[in-house]
């Protein structure tokens, strides 16, 4: 089916100023969306209050408004520009909230503006806790048990079927302040009481705790013919209890069995269908009980999100661009993949590398604040790194952070055991390095697992990095073999870290070590030719090519 011809002018709402939780990823998605719509011949009217964005450059849209993102101002723009449609799914929660408000105030109706990308009903269903819960019940998916209570008596009524530990979240407090966990009746009494007092409307949400469970995200796209693709699965290294934005995350998911992955695939598609996301991308979050494998649905975002920006960069699949095109009537099989030019967008990306994202924090600016990581996001930025292995990927991500850290060693040997233990139990910005320090002290994977609830697979990988680090520190540049140096590079050790371990300088390591090779991010694991020059480095081992005379020439497989 071709694109819609009943609309010509489309209003796009940006996400406003950069705040914690809503950053430059929406400039990326909005810019892509505007470009995609213009490419299709639509006129784009864009509004965003943030001048530091590319999307507000005068060439990106046909009409650009740098105006405050408030309903009366958007109404003025609609009145003036008379768009036929509003695409609210590329500007984060800000754009979505405005779209809902414009709809509820009858402004969209008044000026005959259609909402595309997500319907009002779908947005409501995804965002309203009760409606979402009912929807998930209808399709037989589990969610953490929860109830909203307004008195102690009500609280004691529901605790029997929710069970302990229970999370207490006061409604409408700033940034989730006053939230807590109760493990027993006594604590429950005092904490619910405090929560009710903290809430301006005297209301708390009681929720079954899934803290410590494994956390996964699925990036899904769906078109109007009900074709669905999973763009990417993402696994949070940090278990439930830490906001995804503050978690170290890895793509694709590392610790799911194929069977489990297929279950999540089916679940996430079922969620999109039930919520009614007809055209576009969504992010569905799941928690998994590590004991028995049960999956809970945590939430879904009926829009492009921070995770979809990550998934796009991780796979090369441009979610925002495709979402914009699906919104105007295309189907996934009609759109081609820019990278291969050969495969359609209905072709699910396959990746043959590992992507790691690590958040960047700025607690030094706010010394008075509690730097424990919780369900309220506190990070101000993030980095992503690509490697052939998890070890290489995470070590590259570490040095991308620009914290002056080039490996998993930051001099924590001065702390006593108790401190290290506490820093592994209580999530914080430096937990990864404390875990490494734990391994350096000979703690076992099981021991650190029981403290952190991080999956043993990840812990084992970290342990292997630390073990190798210790092996290296017994050597010098003079005694280390070429093979060992090559293994170190493949494991992602930086020249700087190697210089420290081998007691030499970064320059000398550089002179001695093998050269890096460059690989392409191609969405298809090299099955098709890639036309997009998007690269990452690695130290893949040598490949051999058989010559006509029977001899083998070795070369390092580089694709740039």
């Amino acid at each position, binding site marked *: 089916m071709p694109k819609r011809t009943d609309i010509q002018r489309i209003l796009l709402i940006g996400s406003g100023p950069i705040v914690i939780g809503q950053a430059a*990823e929406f400039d990326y998605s909005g810019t892509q969306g505007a470009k995609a719509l213009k490419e299709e011949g639509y006129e784009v009217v864009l509004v965003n209050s943030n*001048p530091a964005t590319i999307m507000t450059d005068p060439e990106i849209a046909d009409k650009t408004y740098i105006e405050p993102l408030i309903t009366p101002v958007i109404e003025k723009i609609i009145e003036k520009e008379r768009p036929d449609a509003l695409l609210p799914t590329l500007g984060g929660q800000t754009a979505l909230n405005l779209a809902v408000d414009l709809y509820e105030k009858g402004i969209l109706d008044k000026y005959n503006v259609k909402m595309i990308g997500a319907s009002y009903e779908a947005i409501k269903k995804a965002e309203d806790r009760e409606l979402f819960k009912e929807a998930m019940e209808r399709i037989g998916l589990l969610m953490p048990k929860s109830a909203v209570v307004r008195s102690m008596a009500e609280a004691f009524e529901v605790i029997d079927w929710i069970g302990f530990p229970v999370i207490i979240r006061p409604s409408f407090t700033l940034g989730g302040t006053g939230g807590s966990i109760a493990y027993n009746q006594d604590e429950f009494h005092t904490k619910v009481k405090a929560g009710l007092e903290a809430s301006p409307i005297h209301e708390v949400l009681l929720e079954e705790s899934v803290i410590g469970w494994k956390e996964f995200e699925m990036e899904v796209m769906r078109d109007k013919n009900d074709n669905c693709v999973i763009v990417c699965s993402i696994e949070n290294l940090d278990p439930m209890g830490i906001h995804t934005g503050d978690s170290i995350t890895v793509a694709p998911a590392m610790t799911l069995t194929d069977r489990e992955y297929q279950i999540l695939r089916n679940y996430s598609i079922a969620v999109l269908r039930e919520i009614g996301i007809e055209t576009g991308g969504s992010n569905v979050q799941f928690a998994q009980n590590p004991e028995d494998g049960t999956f809970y649905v945590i939430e879904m975002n009926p829009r492009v999100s921070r995770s979809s920006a990550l998934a796009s960069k991780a796979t090369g699949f441009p979610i925002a661009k495709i979402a914009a095109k699906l919104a105007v009537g295309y189907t996934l099989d009609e759109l081609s993949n820019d990278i291969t030019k050969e495969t359609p967008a209905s072709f699910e990306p396959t990746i043959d590398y590992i992507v790691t994202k690590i958040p*960047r924090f700025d607690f030094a600016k706010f010394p008075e604040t*509690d730097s424990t990581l919780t369900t309220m996001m506190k990070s101000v930025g993030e980095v992503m790194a690509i490697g052939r292995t998890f070890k290489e990927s995470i070590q590259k991500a570490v040095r991308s952070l620009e914290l002056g850290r080039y490996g998993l060693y930051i001099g924590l040997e001065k702390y006593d055991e108790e401190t290290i233990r506490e820093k592994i139990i209580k999530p914080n910005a430096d937990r990864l390095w404390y875990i490494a320090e734990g391994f350096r002290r000979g703690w076992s994977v099981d021991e650190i697992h029981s403290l952190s609830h991080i999956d043993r697979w990840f812990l084992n990988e970290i342990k292997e990095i630390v073990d190798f680090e210790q092996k290296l520190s017994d050597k010098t540049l003079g005694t280390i073999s070429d093979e060992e140096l090559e293994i170190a590079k493949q494991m992602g050790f930086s020249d700087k870290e190697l210089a420290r371990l081998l007691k030499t300088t970064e320059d000398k390591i550089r002179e001695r070590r093998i050269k890096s090779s460059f690989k392409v991010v191609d969405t298809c694991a090299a099955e098709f030719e890639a036309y997009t020059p998007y690269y990452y480095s690695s130290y893949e081992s040598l490949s051999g090519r058989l010559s006509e005379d029977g001899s083998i020439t070795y070369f390092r497989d580089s694709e740039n």
Partner: protein
Amino acid sequence: MEKGKVIILGSGPNRIGQGIEFDYACVHCVWALREEGYKAIMVNCNPETVSTDYDTSDKLFFEPIVLEHVLNIIEAEEPIGVVVQFGGQTPLKLAVPLQNYGVNILGTSPESIDIAEDRERFRELVIKLRLKQPESGIARSKEEAVIIAERIGYPILVRPSYVLGGRAMRLVHDTGELLEYVEEAVYVSEDKPLLIDRFIEDAIELDVDAVADGEDVLVGAIMEHIEEVGVHSGDSATCIPPYTLKDEIMENIKEQTRKLAIALGVKGLMNVQFAVKNDEIYIIEVNPRASRTVPFVSKSIGYPLAKIASKIIVGRKLKEIVPKIFELKEKHPSSDFLPKDFNRFSIKEVVFPWNRFPEVDPLLGPEMKSTGEVMGVDEDFGLAFWKAQAGAGSILPESGNIFISVADKDKPFIVEPAKNLQKLGFKIYATKGTYKFLKEHGIQAELVSKLSEERPNIVDRIRNGEIHIIINTPSGRRERSDAYFIRRAAVEHKIPYFTTIRGAKAAVEAIKSFKEKGISVKALQDS
């Protein structure tokens, strides 16, 4: 025609002080170089950006921006040069190490960057150019700090030399505070000296962004900060063009900017910060690279400065890139790009993460804490400010109750805004000191009790929704006083609050304009 490859180093992870503005500048650099026929190669590791969209550059390397990886890419690609001036501190830190490896750094030389960043060398330059800087000194011990402070005179701005971006910077009013600072907050020693600057109280702070090609210098815009000196330039609301400055002062600032750009051999962008008090102009800081105000200036004046600067970097001249500017007969005193009769105000306002950090005092200071920015545009200054506030999430009320509590030194300056507010129909609430002062000046206010007095006190009233706007200037030393609880309550209840007199005055004008004219919208393409 193949002109060769150029590598552009990005800005890495977003953080406070280095945000999306630098990604904006990098993307413009990529576009400009492609326009000029070069192969633009982008290196960055931040997935949240437009620069890492594979559509943006000719080649994208998703890699850490550290020496090892950048050198690997250079070895593989053999570019004609590397651009380091658009990505903030991240690539700038690599300029000298890369040069040591024989890499060609395009644009302003690392040597010039060093002159601008090294206090001693920069001071020599300022003296040579016969310009003026606030007095300063470097202390290598506690005792030396006290001697220097007394020579310069309080108040002073102090900060350790080894941290960047205003971290641990403090405004110090007397010897007691100075000693407290060096004893508790920082460590002063021979190799970790303390930097001391005279603080020019109640001065107006200005930012200037300019482009230069070694011969010509064009000032993009002079920006006037709404908040006084002492608030980090990244945290201050900013107005283009300046709204309280005399024309001859602006012309003089343009001239000083030109002198600095030529002396430093700037090829590309440059940012200068000035302070003006009693018509005296002081240079605070020079950065010969893209600043965070580049996108704001570009959008205000309608010329993409980062793109222009990128073309200069590869050898083009301003006269070729923007010939029309050189034909402009009557220029605006604040910008070389604008005609004399330009009459539109663009105001930048910032947003803070106070709601994420409930323990933090939401007060502006010399350390940057904002995460993002918005812009308000209108022909009327008040409306531009209204829009900037609204964009930042603070809707100014049209009527209602205002709470005023100001420091003694600010009291004389609150009379006029208070009178105007009363005319606009606001009812004024004030605590004892301010109440008394206002009454003496013929302004009727309602007395409201402090936290230590009988309830309902001011915080109760804020929490009950009885107060709709707050003017509360801090009285010097930071402490957990009434003011702290008032500010926190304001943040929690999303009540517009102003902690400087200049901010309060702008707010009063905004309310007045909004009530008289209402808001209208205009597309960039229509102006």
